[in-house]
């Protein structure tokens, strides 16, 4: 493959190569080569570059040519092994008291699992075990299987932290970009072919999740907490390649949480939500109860619990209504606490 790119770079005009592989502009910028003659091939154009300028990067002309070919090869879309992750299985180890966890839980794509337990009980440790695909070698002795199979160390390193996407209340946007530029930048990194379409879907979806609407020209750093969360979730759903999503307690202001998590599930993600919010915890398919560093039990959400979900949702809607009324400058009365209509 790299050989193919070597021949392209020595035979075709640079301008043509860049039209086909726009990511190549990044390579040229990284090595201060962006003013090369576009009508020449890259290898010919290189002859006009001083050797000393290349040497500053530890390259000679041949090295620069090879590096460019490797770069284009690296950023050619390939089969993605992460797309093949259809389930994970947690096989119990032991808790802090060294008693065994009698658990073997398989979670499939599209399933939502909530994780509950007091602070310091070991929720993070479970999430860590999943992230590093523990194979009985962490403090908990747990094993995590992917598609029912154990992984060797090489496969674990290969995952390179891409297995798990995370979303928490502490996260902020730090880039100085508008919503539109932000989405385009992420799409570029994913080598998405139809950038316009994907970013439009993301933007529309984020706006549906957010309580207050925002425009494409808003700076991401100026979004409210709810709007940020909505954009992060839509972006994770449509653009992240990670098959597993860990959600850490998203606040219930300014975003429709149930709809947000439902969206991720629809995108065939494996979803773990660490939360004590009844609405989220009971919207899941199952919940893992953590006590004393171990998985104490796994509760399947029963019909009875699901029935109570309706009332919880009403309570939640009432709170949302009160919030909206306050925002609009209204005065709250007892009537607002009753079901409308």
């Amino acid at each position: 493959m790299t050989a193919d790119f070597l021949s392209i770079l020595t035979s075709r005009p640079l301008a043509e190569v860049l039209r086909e592989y726009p990511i190549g502009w990044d390579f040229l910028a990284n090595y201060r080569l962006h003013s090369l003659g576009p009508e020449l091939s890259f290898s010919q154009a290189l002859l006009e570059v001083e050797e000393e300028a290349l040497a500053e990067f530890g390259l000679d002309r041949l090295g620069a040519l090879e590096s460019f070919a490797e770069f284009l090869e690296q950023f050619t879309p390939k089969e993605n092994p992460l797309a093949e992750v259809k389930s994970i299985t947690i096989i119990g180890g032991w808790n802090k008291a060294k008693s065994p966890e009698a658990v073997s839980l398989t979670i499939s794509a599209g399933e939502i699992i909530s994780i509950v337990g007091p602070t310091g009980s070991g929720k993070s440790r479970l999430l860590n075990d999943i992230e590093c695909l523990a194979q009985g070698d962490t403090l908990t002795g747990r094993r995590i299987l992917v598609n029912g199979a154990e992984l060797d160390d090489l496969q674990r390193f290969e995952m390179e932290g891409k297995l798990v996407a995370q979303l928490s209340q502490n996260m902020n946007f730090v880039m100085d970009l508008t919503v539109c530029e932000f989405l385009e930048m992420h799409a570029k990194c994913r080598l998405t072919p139809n950038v316009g379409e994907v970013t439009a879907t993301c933007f529309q979806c984020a706006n549906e999740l957010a309580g207050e609407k925002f425009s494409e020209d808003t700076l991401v750093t100026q979004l409210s907490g709810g709007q940020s969360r909505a954009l992060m979730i839509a972006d994770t759903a449509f653009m992240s390649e990670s098959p597993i999503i860990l959600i850490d307690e998203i606040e219930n202001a300014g975003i429709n949480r149930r709809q947000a998590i439902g969206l991720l599930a629809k995108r065939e993600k494996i979803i773990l939500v660490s939360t004590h919010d009844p609405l989220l915890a009971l919207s899941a398919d199952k919940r893992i109860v953590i006590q004393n560093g171990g998985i104490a039990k796994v509760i399947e959400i029963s019909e009875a619990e699901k029935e109570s979900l309706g009332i919880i949702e009403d309570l939640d809607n009432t709170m949302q209504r009160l919030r909206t009324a306050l925002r609009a400058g209204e005065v709250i009365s007892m009537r607002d606490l009753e079901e409308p209509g």
Partner: protein
Amino acid sequence: MKLITVAGPPSSGKTSVILRLIEGMNRPQGSIGVVKFDCLTSFDNLSYAEAGIPVHTGFSGKVCPDHFFVSNIEDAVQWGVQSGFEVLITESAGLCNRCSPYIKGILSVCVIDNLSGVNTPRKIGPMLKYADIVVVTKGDIVSQAEREVFAFNIRQVNSAGKLIFLNGITGQGAFILAKYLQQAGEILSLRDTRLRFTTPAAICSYCTGEIKIGEPYQMGMMKKMEFKSL
């Protein structure tokens, strides 16, 4: 003794990463030592001492930190061997983007943080390019998308290295880093080994204490900018 070299821009979280790494390596107290190469002053020795980790700090002062590293690293190794360490970790700080204190055959780690701006990986140069492992810190406070863009920009510069996200506060990610670094080879000396990249060249009048500005005072190896009229 195993030797691991850690480098990274100032305040990227190198010390936290090393402290988490040492926890994750699960070896007896006192069997892992640290040599900290810093510029003028350092407070990291306090963090190491608090964790009961033997540490030796050296200051480059007026000398280029990369030159300082390479001229002291063999002595650091001998200190480690004589102290009976199983593992010696060197931490280099105060580096410019041109630095890369890495040695062929010795596992090298570059620590950069997610808050430093998405294009930073593309500007760092050899320090990132020649690292075996790139550790990204502070990922817990930026969005997933920004983490992914950052990782993509790291890949642009270093496509072969392993990339690990590590939370210096909770230690998330330290396990897999420790696991990878257990593979570091055993050495007793670095004599005749080679750097992965040349250190910045500088032998000019200013190196030897000249402070006056102007053509007559510029001697030795100089690089001049070309200013074209607008």
